[in-house]
């Protein structure tokens, strides 16, 4: 059978329509000269970084002040063959604009609405600093930062501010002088934040922890020594106190945790955690405090509290329109 299959090149006659089929393995060499192709690609590859680097910020750093005004600092690569360069600003309420060229040479500028014309005269890198009032708006206590950035940028939020919403993913986060600094990607960014006196230093920074690892070890040793001393002193005091208790036969009204859990052995583990917290909090806690501590939705916490009330472990009192949860003092008597 194989001998009937004839390679098309070997056919001596043309087809009926007179078309000659030619099989060509080296079409690339025939149609395009390889060296030419390589040379073109080298040119394309060489030009790409130049095209993308000019006029795009090399660095873009933003600092938001407590009044919502924002300081912008940016460094831009520009064509050194230009005499002027027009830069779009992020708004039109501009203050304190300074543009510096190569070797910190002060460049002349002219602001035109939301852009600035800079006389660059051969500078290849320019640094621009200005304050702007257009990026943050405020509604009630809520501040909203909005920006459509052409490149990655860093954003330093004011002290004691806490982020309560954002529409995109941050690339990185650091803490600088008790302020959160986010690194964000190009494109539209919206961040809602508010000020709170309860924020000491808002977000724990894992980098700081690693940087101060050695301090953490020393601190840890000191804490262990301190805890050891406290335990020894307490044990001594306890022994002394138990003798006193026996003598005075003072009746304790609140049961200890061990007894509570012995009496209520069928309590759920998460409920036990609640009881522990209330006990350590002096036997009472607001329901809102419990929610904050255990990060539970209102309804979940309400159900948990009701469960403990049914079990007879706690009682609920109203205090300033809030639920005050107290450990029951006569729990042991009932049992």
């Amino acid at each position: 059978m194989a001998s009937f299959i004839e390679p098309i090149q070997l056919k001596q006659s043309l087809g009926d329509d007179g078309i000659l089929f030619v099989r060509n393995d080296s079409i690339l060499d025939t149609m395009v000269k390889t060296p030419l192709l390589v040379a073109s690609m080298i040119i394309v590859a060489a030009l790409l970084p130049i095209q993308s680097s000019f006029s795009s910020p090399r660095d873009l750093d933003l600092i938001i002040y407590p009044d919502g005004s924002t300081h912008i600092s940016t460094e831009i690569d520009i064509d050194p063959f230009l005499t002027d360069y027009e830069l779009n600003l992020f708004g039109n309420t501009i203050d304190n604009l300074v543009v510096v060229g190569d070797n910190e040479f002060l460049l002349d500028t002219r602001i035109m609405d939301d852009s600035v014309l800079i006389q660059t005269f051969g500078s290849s890198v320019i640094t621009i600093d200005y304050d702007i009032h257009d990026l943050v708006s405020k509604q009630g206590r809520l501040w909203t930062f909005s920006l459509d950035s052409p490149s990655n940028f860093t954003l330093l939020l004011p002290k004691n501010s806490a982020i309560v919403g954002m529409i995109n993913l941050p690339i990185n986060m650091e803490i600088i002088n008790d302020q959160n600094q986010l690194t964000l990607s190009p494109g539209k960014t919206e961040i809602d934040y508010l000020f709170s006196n309860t924020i000491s230093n808002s977000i724990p920074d894992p980098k700081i922890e690693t940087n101060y690892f050695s301090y953490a070890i020393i601190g840890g040793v000191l804490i262990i020594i301190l805890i050891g001393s406290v335990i020894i002193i307490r044990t001594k005091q306890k022994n002394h106190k138990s003798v006193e208790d026996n003598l005075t036969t003072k009746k304790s009204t609140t049961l200890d945790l061990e007894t509570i859990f012995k009496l209520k052995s069928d309590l759920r583990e998460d409920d036990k955690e609640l009881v522990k917290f209330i006990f350590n909090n002096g036997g009472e806690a607001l329901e809102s405090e419990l929610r904050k501590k255990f990060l539970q939705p209102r309804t979940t916490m309400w159900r948990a509290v009701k469960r403990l009330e049914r079990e007879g472990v706690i009682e609920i009192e109203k205090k300033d329109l809030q639920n005050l949860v107290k450990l029951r003092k006569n729990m042991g008597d009932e049992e």
Partner: protein
Amino acid sequence: MKKLAVFAIIVLIFGTVSPSLVDGAYAQNDPSILLPIAVQADKQIVNQLDRVYGDQIPNNLQILYDKGHGAVYSLDESLPNDIEKAKQDFLLAMNSFMQISRIISQSSEKVVVVTVSDKSNRNLTSEIDRLEKYVKTLETISKKYNADVESDFIKIYDLIQELRQQVNDLNEVNVGIKKIKIILDSIKNDIRESALEQRSDFIKRFFDRLLNQFDKQLTKAQNDGLDQIQIDKGHELILEIRELVSKNQINDAKVIFAELKALMENIGYSVRIT
């Protein structure tokens, strides 16, 4: 030769594509940062709800909060293994919290949206901080030009210190800021004067460098047999620019320079970027 060429093409393609790959990797840097941000936002929202509604949270806010809070839990569970899920959880949580905070602001505060450029919204400490940063930038520049303005900066820093002590007195701060701005204007003038000579040298060097390159290109074009009229026109423009620069007529020089650049581009001998 063919193998070498194919290898070169592959290397070039990879070289061209690889920067975008690097960017992508950078964008996914350390997803563990998402959790503390979301947890903190959760706590702040709980505080807000407590402050505004106490135990009587409207149903729509409760639903939104449960959605956001659930996403925070899911985020915690997704990390560190399922990064894509963690990202979705983060965005869902932050979006829910954002909606809650905006609803609270709209419903509970009798305040309309204001941009911070509104002067009624002034924070004097921030204003002084920004001014000080500006002063420091100018101070650095003035040192570069050896401008004799050191005493002016000492005066400004003293005034800034005074302003910080009077930060609650709007009138005093306004007067102080005005004084500082007057001194700053004088400093800027001094810097400009000191920079005049250096600036003029800087611009001359810029034109010299470029015009020499254009000159070489024109010679090359002439050797290649290009239209002599165009080449003569190019030389004329170069001479004109040199004359204008020597007379310090920079703006006119810029206009002719733009014309020269266009001509060089037309004849296909534009100067390469170095």
